């Protein structure tokens, strides 16, 4: 009330004060809107990510992505000592696995790493450790592996993953090889 009296009593100064007060309010409102906007921005990333994979419970699953289930597959080719000019195709040094995708969204596997190869020679034979090695610590797949949502175990071939040294001994014939394989991908 006191302010009103002052305004009525001094019209010129009152209009200036009113404009000033209006600007203050604008700034305040802008600050409030900006703060809300900033909060929305921060929250918006998460919100949009949740909606990416569906709604409700599906979103909760997406935030705690379940690991792909990788198990040993059945070799469809065989390995032999690498020629000096390399293997003639990518099948010879392939690794065979089966992969299941327990997530309710499709996953595309783009990177594979192969660990130390374990060798099991045939009975009565020897094949020195290190005779078979991974071709690279980590490799980007030329053809990414697409796994549908909730895919059951699917045979997956990882080409050119391992090689046998050209000096591998005779006892390596018929040996079996196993290696830890890490498949890395993202939702697609």
């Amino acid at each position, binding site marked *: 009330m006191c302010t009103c009296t002052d305004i009525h009593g001094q019209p010129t100064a009152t209009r200036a004060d009113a404009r000033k007060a209006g600007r203050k309010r604008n700034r305040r409102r802008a600050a409030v809107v900006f703060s809300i906007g900033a909060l929305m921005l921060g929250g918006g990333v998460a919100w949009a990510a949740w909606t990416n994979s569906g709604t409700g419970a599906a979103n909760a699953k997406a935030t705690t992505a379940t690991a*792909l289930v*990788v198990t040993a*597959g059945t070799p469809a080719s065989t390995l032999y*000592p690498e020629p000096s000019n390399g293997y003639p195709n990518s099948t010879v040094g392939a690794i065979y*696995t089966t992969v299941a995708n327990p997530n309710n*969204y499709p996953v595309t596997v783009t990177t594979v790493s192969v660990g130390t190869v374990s060798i099991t020679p045939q009975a009565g034979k020897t094949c020195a450790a290190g005779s078979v090695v991974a071709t690279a610590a980590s490799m980007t797949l030329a053809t990414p592996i697409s796994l549908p949502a909730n895919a059951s175990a699917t045979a997956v071939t990882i080409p050119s993953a391992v090689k046998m040294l050209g000096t591998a001994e005779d006892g390596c014939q018929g040996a079996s090889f196993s*290696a830890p394989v890490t498949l890395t991908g993202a939702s697609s």
Partner: protein
Amino acid sequence: MIGRFTALLVAAVAVVGLSGTTPAQAAWGTAGVGAGRQAAMTMPTGSAPTVTMTTAVVGLGLVRTYTVTWPRTELHAGMPVTAYRVTRTSTLGVAVLSGGTCSGVTVLGLGFPTYVPADVAALTHSCTDTSAVDLGVVRYAITPVYGNWVGTPSVWSAPVS
């Protein structure tokens, strides 16, 4: 005025906010660790050779030349083995190659001489084995070799004498 300003601000925030969400949508990384498997092949069995024998008088003696011919052996289609072991059995002497080209060179680590074709990709290979003594009935077998790997010998060739 205030309404317009507010609307612009909200729109700007919304645009920035929405554009910022796009990378997050593609970032649901996942991985899996398990076993991968592979197996080594076993060497193939050699193909039985065909053998012919010719004789020639050299000085005061008779030299027998056995020409051994066999088809190429492959690890798999288009991948021939790198060498062959040529073995002989005879009724009148020990099974040692006495001369000719079949003895080939000794491949280090194998412990026995092998025949290394000039062209391993050739469809057929041939070598000669000579002897100044009568060996009686002679037969040959071929064993494929690849690096340090040795295959299974072929069945014996038809006998020649």
